[in-house]
Each structure stands twice: as C-alpha cells, then as structure tokens.
C-alpha cells in the first residue's frame, strides 16, 4: 500500500477565505492510501516546506499531494522540497485549489467541496505516478553552419569567437553568397564587397572556422548536442593544397561555354574558373560539364599551364562525417524565375532583366565592367522602367507568385533608380509601384531622396504588359493617381522579382526534421519569443531561410542564432525533461503512425529482439529518443494499442483523475 501525504495550503486568506482548509485536510485523511494530511498557512514558506520534508521522512511517504496554487507557480518548488527529503521529485502532484477554486468561487461549502474533488483527483494521480529521472546527454562542442552567405559567415564568426569549432558547409565553390553579388547596399550606398570581403577573409583565417566549400549536406542523424552530419565534398579537380589561385588556368581555358553563375549568367566563363576575384577560398574549380578534357579526353591545357601542378583530373568526391552539437541553417534565398511572368517579356528580350541581374550590370566587376549598357546590343540606355512586386503579394489562388511581401525590393529598387540617375543623369527612370514600403532606419528618407533629389519618376500603378517593339520595349501600365493608361517606350525594364528560399532548403529541412511553412521558409519555435530557433531542438535559423530580410536584419539574426548556439555548446551535458513518451516494445505494432505525427522526429523504428510472455523474436518496434522528445503526447493517441505512453501524463494517470473527478 502506498503512503501518500496531503498538504493543504491556506495561502493566507487567498485559499482559506473560500475553502475550509481544515475540512479538506480532514476529509483527505480518510482517503485510501493517505497516511498523513495536514494544513498550513503558507506551504511554500520555509516552515511549510520543512513541514513537508519532516512528514516525508517521518511517515516514509512515497507520494505527496500539495493542495495550493497553480502548479505553474510552485510545482518546481515542491519538487525540490521532495527531493531534499529523499523523495523522487516526480512523486509530487499539485491540486490547484487557488486559481481554479478559491479565487473563482464565493461560496464556502461549494469551494470546499470542489477543493476536495481536486485533491482526490491529485491523490488518484499520484498513486499512479512512477519515480522519474531526467536523462542527460553529452554535448559535442562543435557547430555546423549550413550556407556560407553573410548569415552563415556572421553566425560562424560569432560562435568561433566564443571559442567553439565551427564548420561552414557551402554548396558553391566560394563563400559570400548573395551579398557578394550585390553592387551597393541601401540605405548607405556603401559597396557590398567592401564590407563583405573582410568578413570572408576573417572567416577563412579564423583558427576555429573550417570552410567546407563546394560541398553538400547528404544526411543528418542524431539529436540536440549529438548530431552526425555526412557531407559530400565534391571534387574540384584541383588540389586545394597546391592551387595558388593565380588564375592562369582560367585565362588559358579554351572552353567558354559555361554561364558565369556569379554574373547571373549574363556572360560566360572558362570550364576551369574562380567564381570571382575575391573568392574565398581562392581556388580554381573545374566545371566538368563544360570541360573539353572531361568530354573528349583531350585538351589538358590547364594542366600544362599550372606551374603549381594543382590540376587533378582524377580527383574524386570526398565524404566527411563529423559530429556536431548544434546546427545553424543559413541557406538563404534566390530570386524567383522571372519567366513565369512573361507578360513582362523576360524571355523575349535580353533587355528585360531581374534586379539581381541589374545589380551585376551596374557592378564594376560585372560583365560590362560597371558601365550600364543594354545587354542586347551594348548601347547606352536612355530610358529605364522598374517594375516592383513581380511575383510578390500574389493571392494564394492566383496562378503564380508568392503570397508574401519580399520586403527588400522597394529599397533596392529605390537604390537602383538612384544609382542610375547619379551616374547617368541623362537616363529617364520610371518606377511602377503598388505601395512603397520603407519601414527601417533611414529607409523612407532614402526613398524620398530618390524622388526629390534624383527626380525618379514614381508611378503608382502596375505594368500590365511589356512588348518588344523594334529596339524599344513598349511598357503599358496604369497610373492610378492620374487614372491614365501609360505607354512608355523604354530601353530596359528591370523586374523587382520576389525572393524565395533556396531550392535546397526543403531537402535540408527534411534531413533535419525542422518544420517549414508552405513557402519553404523554416518555421521558428515561437514567432515572437523564439525567432531564431527551430522547433527541433539544436537547430537554429539565420537569415532569409526563415523569412525575407535585409542585410542588417540578417546579421542581427545571425548573431542571435550564434548566441543560442554558444549557450548550448557551453553546456557539458543536457538535462532532459523526464516526462517523455515511451514505447512498450511488447505491445508495439511497428506501424509507424507515431513516427508520422511526431513534430520532433524523436521516434525511430528498429528491428529488435523482444522477449515477452506472448512473443519472442525479432520485431519492428518504435524507439523514443528521450533527448529529443518534448512530451506533447501526439504519438500516444495515434497508437491504437496504447504501446506508446507518456511518462508523467500516462493513460492510467489521466484515467485515474477522470474517475476521481466523476466519482
């Protein structure tokens, strides 16, 4: 027979005014299993806690019920009290007779009666409690950052500065990401490369940071503190240790068919190439799909010209497998494919470009060396039309586009317009907009400067279509304020295309069991209070992979994610929540339904030797990783055989409470 102790708190007059606490304590004394029952003015006070401790020792209690305020208030307190007296802290139940009884009922008999029912329910539950011990797991003191853009670089730098090892895995041959492709940054108009490249260099030289470029994540297993990642380091066909980045090979390469990714395909590059002048690591890479040697077995000019002897045609992919304590997702974005919006003639004319392409056209390191020319004929444009919100803010039932606002387009379009007018005052610039959204420090001032100082022609309305007429682009749009349909003959049209998560994000999200929204942006653990964490423990979010944002916001989030990673890695071991799910292997059907509803990927299935009275042999059974399980209980209801149960809120505990309440 269990020995239960009941402790009824007065909470001064908070409870005692409407609940006859002595009557409750007396009544509980006659409940089966209760060997001790008393009341006290303030159970949470030191004297009150001592009273509990003494009773636990004197009566050898193996479970206690405290009738007091909400468990959200003092459950932790009384658990510590029990522990101090040698009782397992999970053998404590709280009957909430303050918030859910004395404070809402005015009538003493009514309040007292309800308090008794609540106390009986808690007694019924505690009798079914089992001592629980929180598991611990060690923390691997190394972080993995997925993506080497500004978000990933900043997170890595901050984590590394705190003294922890960080690996950055980047799918392209260089770090730098989208920011490296930008010409100037709003609203200060400082050059993107000037502020980014020092960070790239710092990351490269940091003794705690290891860059794994031209590599892709293949698989992630494990859980918070103990992830194992398998990374495929693709063959560059260039020996990283020997290549000096001199660039001779890239000049000598006779193949000129590869589209220059860095310049958004606006020009070509050699089959062996260095993405751009300040690439980090500064190493050449062979694009085998365009390399004559790989296609015909001949050529080999790069090999002949490499004085360092770095060319290795027979280099193979390398698999890196390493353990990490935390993973940061910084997979970034890409502009949507503008060809979906062919009313703007994107596929019909080279002179219709996306904003990121325009960024390259304006850049001194771009295909036209920073001289703004029409891509079609290299002539100087005299009239440029910008169209905002291309693919953003579309309704969910529209035929194409994204539902969200891409956030950065208003500002970069103002920037483009301003830069064009600054450099080439003879060019007319029109901007079609739906709304100009400029919340941000110095943002609206910036936009107003474009209008007032640079005389950019902002037109409220949308372009309906763009048609190619000779060398001109006929832009037909509405001007809502003048209630006119405008016909503008431009030399170039620039589309402020919406941005979307990088296409690799979805598969990475699946690998990490990190949840994503319908747009493939990663979901945060809480939209307000935990904005840089994924609901999956140990996974953190940095930059646009979580939602559209500009550079300062990305850097801020990167730092925030880093601080969360540092907080995690600074622990030697993680103490889990013992109220987690547990599978009874004898009852488990192996049906995988629980695995499907687990939001944390905490359930895996294994083939296991099981021995029971009715079954012996190998069978497929569910296994709960207690370090990952958060204890929601979704799996328990999915399980038809009740093989899956939740510690601390077991089926039997809840049924006992139901029975006691309905008695």
């Amino acid at each position, binding site marked *: 027979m269990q020995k239960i102790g009941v402790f009824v708190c007065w909470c001064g007059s908070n409870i005692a005014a409407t609940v006859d606490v002595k009557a409750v304590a007396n009544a509980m004394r006659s409940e089966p299993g209760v060997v001790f029952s008393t009341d006290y003015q303030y159970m949470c006070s030191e004297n009150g806690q001592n009273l509990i401790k003494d009773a636990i020792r004197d009566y050898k209690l193996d479970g206690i019920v405290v009738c007091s305020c909400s468990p959200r208030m003092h459950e932790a307190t009384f658990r510590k009290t029990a522990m101090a007296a040698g009782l397992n802290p999970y053998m404590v139940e709280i009957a*909430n007779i303050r*918030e859910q009884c004395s404070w809402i009922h005015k009538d003493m008999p009514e309040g007292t009666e309800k308090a008794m029912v609540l106390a009986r329910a808690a007694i019924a539950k505690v009798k079914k409690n089992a001592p629980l011990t929180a598991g611990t797991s060690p923390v691997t003191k190394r972080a993995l950052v997925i993506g080497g853009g500004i978000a990933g670089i900043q997170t890595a730098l901050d984590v590394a500065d705190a003294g922890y090892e960080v690996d950055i895995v980047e799918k392209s041959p260089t770090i730098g990401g989208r920011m490296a492709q930008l010409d100037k940054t709003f609203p200060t108009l400082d050059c993107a490369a000037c502020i980014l490249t020092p960070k790239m260099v710092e990351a490269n030289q940091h003794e705690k940071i290891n860059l794994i470029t031209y590599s892709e994540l293949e698989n992630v297993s494990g859980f918070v503190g103990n992830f194992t990642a398998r990374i495929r380091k693709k063959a560059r066909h260039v020996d990283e240790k020997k290549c000096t980045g001199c660039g001779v090979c890239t000049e000598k390469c006779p193949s000129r068919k590869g589209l220059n990714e860095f310049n958004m395909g606006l020009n070509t590059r050699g089959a062996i190439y260095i993405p751009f002048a300040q690439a980090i690591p500064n190493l050449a890479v062979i694009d085998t799909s365009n390399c004559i040697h790989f296609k015909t077995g001949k050529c080999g000019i790069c090999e002949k010209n490499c004085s360092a002897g770095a060319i290795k045609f027979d280099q193979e992919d390398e698999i890196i497998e390493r353990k990490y304590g935390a993973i940061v997702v910084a997979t970034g974005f890409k502009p949507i494919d503008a060809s979906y919006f062919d009313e703007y003639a994107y596929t019909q004319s080279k002179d219709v470009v996306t904003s990121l392409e325009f960024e390259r056209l304006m850049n001194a390191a771009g295909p036209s060396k920073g001289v703004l020319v029409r891509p079609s004929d290299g002539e100087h444009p005299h009239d440029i039309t910008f169209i905002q919100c291309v693919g953003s803010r579309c309704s969910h039932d529209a035929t194409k586009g994204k539902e969200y606002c891409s956030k950065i387009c208003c500002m970069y379009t103002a920037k483009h317009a301003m830069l064009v007018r600054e450099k080439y005052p003879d060019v007319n610039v029109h901007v079609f907009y739906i709304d100009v959204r400029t919340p941000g420090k110095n943002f609206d001032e910036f936009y107003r400067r474009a209008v007032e100082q640079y005389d950019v022609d902002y037109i409220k309305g949308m372009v309906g279509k763009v048609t190619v007429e000779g060398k001109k682009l006929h832009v037909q749009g509405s001007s809502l304020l003048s209630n006119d349909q405008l016909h503008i003959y431009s030399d170039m049209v620039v589309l402020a295309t919406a941005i979307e998560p990088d296409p690799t994000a979805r598969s990475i999200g699946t690998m990490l069991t990190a949840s994503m929204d319908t747009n493939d942006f990663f979901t945060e653990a809480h939209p307000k209070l935990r904005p840089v964490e994924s609901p999956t423990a140990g996974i953190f979010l940095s930059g646009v992979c979580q939602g559209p944002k500009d550079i300062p916001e990305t850097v801020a989030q990167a730092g925030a994610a880093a601080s969360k990673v540092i907080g995690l890695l600074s622990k030697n071991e993680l103490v889990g929540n013992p109220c987690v799910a547990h599978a009874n292997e004898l009852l488990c059907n192996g049906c995988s339904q629980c695995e499907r509803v687990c*939001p944390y990927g905490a359930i895996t299935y294994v083939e296991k030797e099981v021995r029971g009275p009715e079954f012996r042999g190998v069978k497929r059974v569910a296994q709960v990783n207690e370090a990952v399980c958060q204890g929601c209980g979704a799996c328990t209801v999915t399980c038809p055989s009740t093989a899956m149960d*939740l510690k601390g809120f077991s089926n039997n505990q809840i049924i006992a409470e*139901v029975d006691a309440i*309905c*008695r």
Partner: protein
Amino acid sequence: MPVNTEWKPKIVAFCCNWCSYAGADLAGSSRLAYPADVKIIRIPCSCRLNPLFILRAFQRGADGVILCGCHPGDCHYSTGNYYARRRMTLLFSMLNYLGIDSRRTRVEWVSAAEGAKFAATMNDFAKTITELGENVKLGDLRCKEN
C-alpha cells in the same frame, strides 16, 4: 416530470498546459467566476487527449466534456492542436451519429492571455449542459449508484 433540484452537472475540462491551463489560472487571478461543476485536468497538449478519456468521463457520469488548447498555429509543440482538432471533429461527429447530443462535447481554443474567454466559455458550456440535463445516453449505470 419531476425536476431534480439536487442535480448538478459534472463537467470535465481537459486543458493544455501551455495555453488553456494558464488561461484558466488567469481567469482565477482575475477573479472571474464560473461554476464549480467544472473540474480541470491538466494535459501537456490538446493532442494528448485520447478519445478513451472522454468516453471514460461519460461512463463515470460526466455530463459534458470540453477540451481547451492553444489556438491553431500557436501550439507549444507547433502541431499538436492540429491533430487534436481532426481527432475531436471525427470523434464528436461519431458520437453525434450514435445519437449523443453534440453540445455535450466541445473544443475551445483559449490562449494564456484569455482568462476572460476561459471563464465565459466555461459559463456558457455549464449553462448548455445544465439545460441539456443529465447524460443518460452514454453513462454506465453501475457507476451511478452512489
């Protein structure tokens, strides 16, 4: 038919720990009254509510069962209440199909900030159950002896 003046409804409210239980606490600290017939059982998440528990409550003499959880989209465990929503919709529909009044079962989303909503919901639910009277269709006579 003689009206049993002694009869008081028994109402079981399952509340998720993170939103609704906290909402009930807030109703308490705001001193917003609701009938003492409502007894709360704390569960970690609305998705922990097994249909067995609901039927058990009715068997043991409950006259109404209500589940409160975080608003859809706000679940502490991100998706729990979405599963609960489907399960409860289907279960309630089945009970109704068997002739059990659907007003005896309810789901309400109550956030930790909605103390007033919690109290109002319980008042309304208790009123509904009182009007419906004793649950005779889904009870177990053996449990009603005392």
